[in-house]
């Protein structure tokens, strides 16, 4: 039973309003002498909205937004491409996978914050060191899912394709890839957010522009309103990228059956 789009939108707005109302109350109405969401740490929703408006109105935001978005998209694309390629490679070469398995897991456990100086050393202060940080997050998420996705291919379909005489390349194109797609997209939805996080953390740790830079500046001077405005803009833009991913997903997964018997 699909919900009507207009009703859905209404409900979504309702949730947003509820959250904002709670925030406003928490920041302005003391409960037992204490504020639930002290303004010093949380600002006030209205101030944040006003600041977001101001950032756009004065146009200062565009430059930063552009940089951060570029980094995010690059991190997302490079990281997921890498994750897909290496994931497929590992899944098809069990020996390689077995040998490198512990190392992949070890690298995944390195705190990216500590790696930042090394990326800056190698890639300079431009966008690439931030992209690299995002890539290290996105890569692993996509990698593990693609790796598993390939291993989940239906054995009968695979055997059939192999009997047809498909080469490894053809198997990839016609069997592994489409079969792993839904795994991949699941990881991509997670990754979109992480790509942005990587870019922003990179900027946060060293940069001269970008939303992370803005947030960092604001944090240093207790400008919580600025911090929240920055985060809000971030989050909104993730939705835009994710919307794109969902569109592609819909297109590529037309063949899936609607869940049977879910209609009533």
């Amino acid at each position, binding site marked *: 039973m699909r919900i009507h789009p207009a009703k859905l939108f209404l409900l979504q707005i309702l949730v947003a309003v509820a959250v904002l109302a709670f925030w406003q109350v928490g920041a302005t109405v003391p409960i037992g002498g204490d504020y639930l969401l002290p303004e010093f740490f949380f600002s006030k929703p209205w101030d944040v909205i006003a600041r977001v408006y101001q950032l756009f109105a004065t146009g200062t935001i565009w430059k930063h937004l552009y940089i951060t978005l570029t980094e995010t998209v690059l991190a997302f694309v490079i990281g997921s491409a890498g994750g897909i390629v290496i994931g497929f490679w590992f899944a098809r070469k069990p020996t390689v996978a077995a040998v490198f398995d512990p190392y992949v897991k070890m690298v995944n456990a390195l705190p990216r*914050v500590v790696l930042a100086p090394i990326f*800056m050393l190698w890639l300079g202060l431009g966008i690439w060191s931030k992209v690299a940080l995002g890539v290290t997050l996105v890569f692993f998420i996509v990698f593990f899912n693609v790796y598993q996705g390939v291993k989940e291919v239906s054995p009968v379909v695979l055997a059939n394709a192999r009997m047809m005489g498909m080469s490894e390349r053809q198997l990839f194109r016609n069997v592994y890839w489409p079969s792993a797609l839904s795994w991949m997209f699941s990881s991509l939805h997670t990754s979109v957010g992480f790509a942005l996080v990587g870019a922003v953390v990179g900027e946060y*740790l*060293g940069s*001269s522009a970008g939303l992370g830079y803005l947030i960092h*500046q604001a944090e240093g001077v207790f400008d919580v309103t600025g911090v929240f405005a920055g985060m809000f803009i971030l989050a909104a833009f993730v939705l835009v990228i994710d919307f794109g991913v969902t569109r592609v997903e819909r297109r590529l997964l037309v063949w899936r059956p609607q869940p049977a018997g879910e209609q009533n």
Partner: protein
Amino acid sequence: EIEKPNVTLGVGGKPLLYYLPLTLAERLGYFKDAGLNVEINDFGGGSKSLQALIGGSVDGVTGAYEHTIRMQQKKQDIRAVIDLGRYPGIVVGVRKAEADKIKSVADLKGAKIGVTAPGSSTYILVQYLMRKAGMNPDDASFIGVGGGASAVAAMQNGEIDAISHLDPVISKLQDMGEINILVDTRTTEGTEQVFGGMNPAAVLYFKESFIKDNPNTVQALTNAFYRTLKWLEKATPEEVAATVPEEYWLGDKSLYIKAFNASRQSYSTDGNIDEASMKSALNLITTTDPSVDPKSIDLSKTFDGSFLAKAKGQ
């Protein structure tokens, strides 16, 4: 002629009052006047901006003088060319509720002390103070509370008894009435009490090789900063507040002015680092870090006063 008109400077937390001269030089247009096009990169901390310098991604850094000493030990030739802050600006404060129990550094025994980060200058200063008071570093427990709001939160929540921190956190805490000040190295009086003299804080430093290859660029930067120091010496708090971006005001102009007034004395007026203050800085490091051998450090290589001299001559 200027060899490299497009220079990148690194800084670890540009809005901090500690680095005020940098922001002023930029906002007053003194870099432009000197024929420079300066890009300022802000880093997550002082050590990160130093790493960026060593890695070659920035040309110069406004950072702690102490870095030049430590880098000598790491066989990196880093030299300061002008002093921006003559006092460290670090303040040790005690939570109001504990104020009657902790009246001196010696009372810090067993206390939980918040510092910006383990290993940072705020941490080292407390260790230095404790040593001077005849205590061991592990007589108190140190908690990294970060910069910014989390430091305020830690104090508010009563998770630390004392805090060693910089502005604006200290001013904010004072403003909120959370702390009493125990040691204040923002002022001449406080610094003399601790070190018996000056103790250089923020400086402008470069790699030695950069200085050698780009003397005119370094000169131009030094000139700009010297001019800023001179402007700052005479400026009223209102003028300063009007010059920095509004976002730097801590949400409240009067608070900013309060904070500035508290720090005002710590800004260098002549940009010079004399031998006594160098020794004082080295002493601070060697007292708290036994791995640094004072004999292996050649202090004359930490500060190159030639540019400052020319700047003054103009």
